[in-house]
């Protein structure tokens, strides 16, 4: 083997040495991703956040959809209207990663610069109905159809539930979220989320 052939093989080996680590970096979910588009099933706008195998989707719900849902579950018209007009999204959390995922909705902020507010959680609605005459059937339906305020998901777990952002139909906001993945706090902002308009 002459000197030229030897140098050429060394260069090929050196290049191979960088190709696989490059593939590795490309394969690992190193950074968060936010995507938006249209939900195939409902035709409504959706936003999705992904990081380390974990995903959270927000899918718009029309105010009328939400009103109809709760009217069919024991709420009176005014109460169903009140829930339907608080910017409700269908929310899907999924843990396809390899570590435990947990969150507390009380740590999340609904940001409309310069103000910010909290989500309307199960506890908010429980307290609200405490002063109003709402049937038990209706309260139970709302409690269980809302995304749990706190939840932990092991790999392979997922959950659906409604989230209520306390804004009028058509309002836009940024969502500042915080979760814990494998015990490590992770924060992210989903910009430009829009509540479904009241048609």
């Amino acid at each position, binding site marked *: 083997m002459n000197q030229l052939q030897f140098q050429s093989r060394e260069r090929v080996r050196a290049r191979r040495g960088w190709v*696989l680590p490059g593939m590795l970096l490309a394969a690992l979910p190193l950074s968060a991703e936010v995507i938006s588009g249209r939900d195939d099933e409902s035709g409504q706008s959706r936003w999705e956040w992904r990081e380390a*195998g974990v995903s959270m989707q927000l899918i718009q719900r029309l105010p009328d959809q939400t009103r109809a849902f709760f009217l069919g579950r024991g709420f009176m018209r005014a109460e169903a209207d009140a829930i339907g007009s608080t910017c409700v999204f269908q929310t899907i959390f999924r843990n396809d990663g390899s570590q435990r995922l947990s969150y507390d909705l009380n740590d999340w902020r609904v940001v409309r610069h310069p103000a910010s507010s909290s989500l309307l959680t199960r506890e908010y609605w429980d307290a609200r109905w405490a002063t109003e005459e709402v049937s038990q059937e209706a309260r139970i339906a709302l409690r*269980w159809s809302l995304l749990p305020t706190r939840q932990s998901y092991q790999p392979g777990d997922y959950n659906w539930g409604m989230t209520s952002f306390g804004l009028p139909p058509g309002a836009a906001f940024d969502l500042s979220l915080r979760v814990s993945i494998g015990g490590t706090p992770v924060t992210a902002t989903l910009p430009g989320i829009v509540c479904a308009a009241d048609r």
Partner: protein
Amino acid sequence: MYRWSLTLFLLLVTPFVAAQKPGLGLTHLPGRPQAPDFVLHDLDGNSYRLSDHRGSVLIINFWATWCPPCRAEMPSMQRAWEQLQKEGIVMLGIDVGESEDTVLEFTANYTVEFPLLLDQEAQVTGQWPVVGLPTTFVVDTEGRISYRAIGGREWDDPELLDLVRALQR
């Protein structure tokens, strides 16, 4: 360098690929807490007491008709039950907070032959470690919660059923 890179790539990427499939789909609960006892009725008015099934493995599914993943997993639960009932494994669905009529209407569209119990005031549900629907537990022959699944599963997945069957031995 090439060999080391390949090894590192496989070691790190394989768990991510495997994680796309929910694995066996059940989370083992350390310490196996005792399952809270209950008495609930099915759509025909028959009474079911959990502790009456001591000695059998049970799959207990908390669900509701309005919940999309609950509906999605129901056919695979039915298929799993068709296999497991012959082996003495019990499957119970506990509907959370809905009326008998609502659940009856659901069964007009979905074939479900295992007992569907009604927890209309969600009192039993509140005693179990359930915060979202569906949540399913596998209870061992001594009445302890061995596994939990949050969200729907393909219940007739052979690997998942093997985990359930192993509790009988």
